[in-house]
Each structure stands twice: as C-alpha cells, then as structure tokens.
C-alpha cells in the first residue's frame, strides 16, 4: 500500500441516473430499487438507490493512483445505508493499520459504506465446481426462503470484458477484467436472483486469488438462511475471487388486499361518506380508500407523484364497486390551492389527511431546520390551507376530519425529532381549529407504528396491521354537522 499519498486522501462523486442505467446494463442488476423511482419509493430506501457494488468498484477505481492494487489480498465491505443519485458521496480513509486500509463512504457525514482492504499475498485458487448455469433475466426473481436455502449455480456475465474495462479501466488493468466482472456480477446475484426483487445487499468479504483461470463468471452456493431476520448468506468462488456475502430480504410493498378489506367491512357502513383522501395512492391512505369504498362510500383520492399507483387503486375500486366509487386527482399537499379541489369540494363530507414527506431521515444533527420546515409545510400549513379551501364558500360548512398523529410525539427513535415536532404542532392546530369551527369534527389519533412502505424495515420491527388499526377508528368517527 502506498503510504504518504493516502494521507488526507478523499474522493467525491455524485452518481446520476445515467450512471444507474449504465451500471445496471453492465452488471445485469436491473432491480427496480436502482432504476424505478416509483418502485423505489415503496421500499425502505424511499428513493432510487445506487448499487452497492457500484460504490465498491468506484472506490477501488478512485484509489488506483494511491494504492498498489496488485498487492490487494482481500476486500471486506459493509453497506449500512443507501446512497441516492444526486447526493455527494465522499470516500475517505478512516484508518491505516499494518496491512489493512479502512475507508468510509458517507453522505453529509452519515455513513453509507465501510470498505476494508487487506494487502498481502493472494490466496490459492478456488472454485465451486459442477454448478448449473443461472440465467439473469430482465426481471428480478423473488424466491421463497426454502428455495434460497438450497440455491446454487454459476452466474455468467452477459457483458464483455471490454464493457468492464471501459467502466473501470485502472482497476481492470491492475486486477484483470474477468475478476472485476465477477465482482460486478455479485450485484446481479443479490439484486436479481437471491434474494432478488426484495433484496438489500448487506455486506461482502472476498479474497483475491492468485489465479484467474477457468470460465468467466462466478459460482454461488447458499451457506445459510435465517428466516428470523430475513437474512441470506452465500459463498462465492470463481474468476479469481472467493468469499462470502450476505443480503437481507426486505418486506415486499404493503398490500392491503381488497378481498381482505371486504371481509372485514360491513356493507353500507360508510355509505353516507364522500371522502377526500389526501395521500391515497399508497400506505394508510390506500387502505382507508379501500375501507370506505368497501363500506359503500365514495372516495376522491389524491396523489403527488404516484399517478400509476393511484390509477391502479381507482381501477380496482371501480371494478369492484362501480364507476361513482372512486376518482383520483393530483395534488401537491403543500400547495392544495393549485389542485382541482374546487371541482369536488362541495361533495366532500370527510377529509382523511395522510400526506407526508419521507419520514425516516439520516444525519447526526439533533435538529435540522430544513427537514422541520418540510414536515411543517405539509403537516400544518398545507393541511390548514386545504381545510380552508374545503370549507370556504361551501354550501354546507360541515366537515369531518381524520388526521393521523403519531405515538412518536411521546416516544420516538433517533432522528425523528422534526417529524414528532411537526405532528405535535399539528395536534395543537387541530385542537384550536375544532374549537374555532363548530362545523368541524376532528379525530387525530396518535397511531402506533403501522406496517406501511415507509415502516417496512429490515429487520422486522414490531408494527401494527393497517386495516385492523384503521377500521375501528373510521367506525368511531363522529360525523360533523
């Protein structure tokens, strides 16, 4: 390892969507979490995430001028959080000791990856023999845990060494394109095959071997699965690398099936309601739309970015309950006056307000004014503006409001300060609003942690069922008027 050149060494990169597409093409990892903004929104990442292996290979390429790749013996990597395109990710040397170099990739001081490089003699050759070839399809697989437990096969790259050399020229010159291609394939292994669609790459530990002979690609065999934590460990060997990697299978996007909702709701119990459901394209909003429609009510659901999801729910509800049941409209909850709210406001009897920015945030600061303002813009200002719009010049000023507050106002985990503060502020507003407007009936329960796209974490954290939590609350609502 080069010594003095590493002092205070850093590299910074901002990945673009073009980079995402390029690496997906190169590695074969076309998991939607890396490419599809809408699909990624319904995962723990909350947004498109940079391929973890892309981070590793970028780091190794960036280090080429200051380290001797030829003496690199092992790569250990721990992915701790997602990097999003358009974020500046900084790679810095954290520690040098004996034959080890430890680096950290971070965004805004928040760690995303720890990369440990070990220098020394290469290990002996190793392959996993006699494995059936595995094809990497265009769509990621979603195998069961039983299938994952017995998974074994040989992944062949669908790309050429020239492609890899173009993307990582210095690295390929030092370590060989076939070896770098095999490392890139690990992204496909996790993202497309095992665990596939709902995977999150946790970490890898690979040795670089002295020889890089044999067929291109890499052999893989599952070492263990741990269903408690939805964790899969695999051994890999071939093309000059050998080692282990681990990946989680996250919960799939929350699906409150209409069949289940119908089995719980009494026919006609919400027949008098015409509900405006803000943020109705997913999560609790979508569940509420289904509950009310199943109970004979009519719903107008709003979405901000999730037009396809909103249309899917609208089509499902119309298919089940008929044309008048559901309409969908675009609305920026921070600027409801810019929407078509005027066209429906006279019909609305109930308002359900599920609009939210991403709740989980990262960073080490106790309080971030920008994040707080973002919550306040939607939870307080946008909500009040919408109530004003719904009740102003309305033939009948009665409105029943359901506003989900949160138990996090009292008990919260780290990094929830701004969220809880904004919810607390909304509670104060709702109380005063109800006192000032006799026509309003307000319910603002502090909801527990409910399984939604935003809370479906890895590993499982205790959560409540959306339908079972919401239904009694909807039934208990007092109607305004």
């Amino acid at each position, binding site marked *: 390892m080069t010594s003095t050149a590493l002092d205070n060494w850093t590299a910074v990169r901002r990945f673009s969507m073009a980079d995402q597409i390029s690496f997906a093409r190169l590695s074969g990892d076309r998991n939607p979490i890396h490419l599809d903004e809408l699909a990624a929104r319904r995962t723990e990442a909350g947004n498109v995430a940079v391929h973890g292996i892309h981070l590793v290979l970028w780091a190794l390429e960036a280090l080429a001028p200051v380290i001797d790749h030829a003496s690199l013996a092992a790569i250990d990597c*721990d992915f*701790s*959080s997602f990097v999003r395109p358009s974020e500046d990710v900084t790679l810095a040397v*954290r520690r040098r000791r004996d034959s080890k170099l*430890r680096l*950290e990739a971070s965004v805004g001081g928040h*760690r995303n990856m*720890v990369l440990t490089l070990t220098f020394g003699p290469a290990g002996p050759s190793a392959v996993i023999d006699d494995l059936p070839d595995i094809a990497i399809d265009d769509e990621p697989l979603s195998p069961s845990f039983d299938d994952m437990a017995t998974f074994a096969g040989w992944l062949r790259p669908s790309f050429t060494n020239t492609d890899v050399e173009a993307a990582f020229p210095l690295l390929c010159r030092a370590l060989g394109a076939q070896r770098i291609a095999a490392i890139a394939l690990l992204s496909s292994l996790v993202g497309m095959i095992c665990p596939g669609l709902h995977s999150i790459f*946790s970490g890898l530990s690979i040795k670089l071997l002295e020889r890089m002979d044999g067929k291109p690609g890499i052999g893989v065999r599952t070492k263990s699965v*741990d269903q*408690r*934590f939805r*964790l899969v460990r695999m051994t890999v060997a071939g093309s000059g690398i050998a080692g282990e990697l681990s990946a*989680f299978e996250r919960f799939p996007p929350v699906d409150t099936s209409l069949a289940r909702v119908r089995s719980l709701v009494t026919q006609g119990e919400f027949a008098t309601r015409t509900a405006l459901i803000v943020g109705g394209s997913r999560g609790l909003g979508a569940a509420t739309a289904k509950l009310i429609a199943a109970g004979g009510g009519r719903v107008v659901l709003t979405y901000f970015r999730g037009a396809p999801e909103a249309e899917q729910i609208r089509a499902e509800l119309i298919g089940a309950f008929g044309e008048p049941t559901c309409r969908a409209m675009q609305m920026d909850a921070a600027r409801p006056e810019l929407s078509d709210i005027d066209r429906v406001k006279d019909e609305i009897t109930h308002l359900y307000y599920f609009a939210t920015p991403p709740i989980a945030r990262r960073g*080490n600061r106790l309080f971030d004014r920008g994040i707080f303002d973002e919550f306040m813009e939607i939870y307080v200002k946008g909500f009040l503006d919408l109530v004003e719009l719904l009740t102003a010049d309305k033939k009948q000023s009665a409105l029943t409001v359901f506003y989900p507050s949160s138990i996090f106002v009292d008990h919260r*985990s*780290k990094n929830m300060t701004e969220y809880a503060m904004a919810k607390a502020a909304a509670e104060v507003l709702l109380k005063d609003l109800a006192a000032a407007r006799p026509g309003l009936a307000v319910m603002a329960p502090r909801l527990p942690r409910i399984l939604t796209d935003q809370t479906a*974490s*890895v*590993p*499982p*954290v*205790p959560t409540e069922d959306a339908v079972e939590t919401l239904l009694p609350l909807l039934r208990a609502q007092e109607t305004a008027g």
Partner: protein
Amino acid sequence: MTRTEIREKITELLSDILDDEDLVLEDSTLASNVDGWDSVNHIKLIVAIEAEYGIRFDTEEATAPENVGALVNLIAKKIASPE
C-alpha cells in the same frame, strides 16, 4: 461469566460492527443513543452474539431489549440455561 464481562464483549462486538473504537456502553445505554446502532446493525450484533456464546434468540427476544442492561441480562439467562 459476569455481567461486566458480557457487557464488555457486547461493546467489543458492536465496536467492530460500527467501526467505533471509542464506543462505551453502559447498562442504561439505548440503541437510539449510539450513532449507527440502527435495526440492521442490531441484527448484525445479535448474530455476532449468538456466534460468540453459542446461543439463539427468537425474533421477539432479539428486538425486545430496551437497553444494554436488558440485553446483558438476556444473554446471561441464555448462557445459564441454553435451550
């Protein structure tokens, strides 16, 4: 094995996971008080503890301890009467 020894071992394992050589854990320490001790790193810690002591937690046990002291107590109980 004493409670102090178990807590020191937890500190060592978590220190390695979090890459934090200065980590100090007290019985009263909450995961939310430690930078980087998120749900994924908690699972890594639990898996490392299981390998270290040859014990096994069920899902509820793994996520239930409210602080380091409760986790130490749980490990001590498991070591004393392995299932």
